[in-house]
């Protein structure tokens, strides 16, 4: 009898799952919230006073292979930064009409990428470096991210970092 009931009720259970559970609530961090975070909209704690809606300015500093920059950095630091001819401490400004492509999302991932390459012009950096820190120079040099690459040196030359494709899988900053 129990077996017969199971056979009869199984299709009903499947129908119920497909028809009704589609409308069930789902737990998630809203994708729009991730985009809004990148736009500085939500303040869960003490925030900053903003006189206008203008985007912040950002800079990029290079770090030696021997440096220890990473997730623990809270702000730009001169510790472990490269030095050499024509390299100014603190690095270079992100350039372009705006520093970052307007944050957006695809699927559930919000993302943004600098609009232009990061260029260090006619520098001599003879000690190997392999990381760049991007930080917010408008907001007290607060650290944004550290990106590593293969070790390089530069001699009376130019070092250029070109940006990845700005999308949900390769954008420089992604909130998945």
């Amino acid at each position, binding site marked *: 009898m129990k077996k017969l009931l199971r056979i009869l009720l199984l299709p009903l259970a499947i129908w119920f799952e497909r028809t009704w559970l589609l409308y069930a609530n789902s737990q998630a961090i809203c994708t729009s919230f991730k985009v809004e975070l990148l736009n500085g909209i939500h303040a869960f704690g003490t925030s900053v006073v903003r006189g206008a809606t203008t985007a912040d300015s950002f800079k990029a500093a290079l770090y030696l292979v021997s440096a220890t920059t990473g997730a623990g950095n809270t702000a730009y630091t001169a510790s472990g930064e490269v030095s050499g001819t024509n390299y100014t401490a603190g690095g270079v400004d992100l350039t372009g009409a705006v520093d970052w492509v307007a944050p957006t999302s695809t699927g559930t991932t919000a993302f943004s990428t600098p609009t232009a390459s990061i260029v260090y012009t006619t520098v001599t950096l003879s000690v190997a470096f392999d990381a760049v820190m991007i930080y917010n120079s408008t907001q007290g040099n607060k650290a944004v991210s550290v990106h590593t690459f293969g070790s390089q040196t530069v001699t009376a*030359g130019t070092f250029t970092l070109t940006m990845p494709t700005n999308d949900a899988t390769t954008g420089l900053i992604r909130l998945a």
Partner: protein
Amino acid sequence: MAPNGPVGKKDLKANPTHDELKEHFRLAMREHPHLTTTKGPKAWSAVDAGALRKVDGGHENDDELAVSVEYYDGQELVHRSAHVHLKKPRAEVTPELQSF
């Protein structure tokens, strides 16, 4: 002097190949009449005439495509430029949600 800011006016397309990156780099460097070296600027015409020995280098992996160019005066390195295209940065934030 090379330009201060984005290299050249020829934007790279997304996901350039090694050759495209090399060409982009070459054109960008050629936008100005001189190659900067540790011994002062060298006119490109002199460089083309073989005054300096050029060595191209680079590598590619899942994370980046890098191109470098070196110029030697004899055995002495007098210029090295490098161009790194970040393919897929490894830093990504994945937020987690806690249930009640």
